[in-house]
């Protein structure tokens, strides 16, 4: 087992554990912080796959921007996920068992998720995959730049329009009509 394989397995384990904690932790801010760890582990996996540019983009966009958005949204809007909200009452083992068999939180979503993973695994098992091409690939950043501004220039420009529309939309949606309220309260 080479060092690269060990690094991949360790990053993959960190990623899956963090994702598990994202889904199961009781406090939503903790879930957001575990999400950061999961994103960083995914960035590391990109690095083991020789995708250096995506490593940087993953760190900047996911671990930086999206995390900041999520945490700002939680802090700004006082989103509480009360412990036990929407869950069976009680504590300890009894609550866990009731939670496991409840329709909303327990078996049905778990069955869907496990079923999906099992189907994908059987597909992967049945398909013959080619081995790794020999040699280290050339650094991919230059090639990505050429592709983005050559073959994919129209989708690239469309993506910038999508981002602009999303930004304007988010601002318009959350615009508080604060000035008018202040004027009404003053007299």
């Amino acid at each position, binding site marked *: 087992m080479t060092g*690269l*394989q060990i690094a*991949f397995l360790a990053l*993959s384990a960190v990623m*899956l554990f963090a*994702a598990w904690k*994202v*889904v199961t932790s009781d406090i939503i801010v903790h*879930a*957001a912080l575990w*999400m950061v760890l*999961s994103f960083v582990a*995914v960035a590391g*996996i*990109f690095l*083991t*796959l020789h*995708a250096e*540019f*995506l490593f940087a*983009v*993953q760190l900047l*966009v*996911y671990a930086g921007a999206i995390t900041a*958005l*999520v945490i700002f*949204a939680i802090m*700004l*809007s006082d*989103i*509480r*996920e009360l412990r036990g*909200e*929407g869950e069976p009452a009680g504590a300890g083992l009894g609550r866990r068992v009731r939670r496991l068999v409840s329709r*909303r*939180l*327990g078996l049905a*979503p778990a069955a*869907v*998720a496990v079923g*999906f*993973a099992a189907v994908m*695994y059987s597909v*992967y098992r049945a398909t013959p*995959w*080619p081995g*790794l*091409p020999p040699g280290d*690939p050339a650094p*991919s950043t230059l*090639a*990505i730049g050429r592709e983005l501004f050559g073959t994919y220039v129209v*989708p690239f420009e469309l*993506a910038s329009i*999508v*981002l602009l529309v*999303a930004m304007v*939309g*988010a601002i318009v*949606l959350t615009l508080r009509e604060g000035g008018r309220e202040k004027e009404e309260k003053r007299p």
Partner: protein
Amino acid sequence: MIPLSWVLVSAALLFGLGLYGALARTNAVRILIAIELMLNAVNLNLVGFSRYLSPHDVTGQVFALFVITVAAAEAAVGLAIILMIVRQRDVSDVDRINLLKW
């Protein structure tokens, strides 16, 4: 050398975890986070296929870049909508957000 199947299996497990989170949790923000996890799993698959199946071009990585772009836009708009709903109705539980107009 990392076998391609390792990448695919860990991506499938990550997608499964995100799917479970999106289905089982009821907090809107946590559902958005779970969706981001699923998009990450898709990106892992794209980068893996790009590295192993077509090592001489970077189409898969460019696709992953576009997925990241759309994910960022989706997070911004989704969180803005959640902020509005919380501000107007003071709920973030999707089971209680069941009216189109109020």
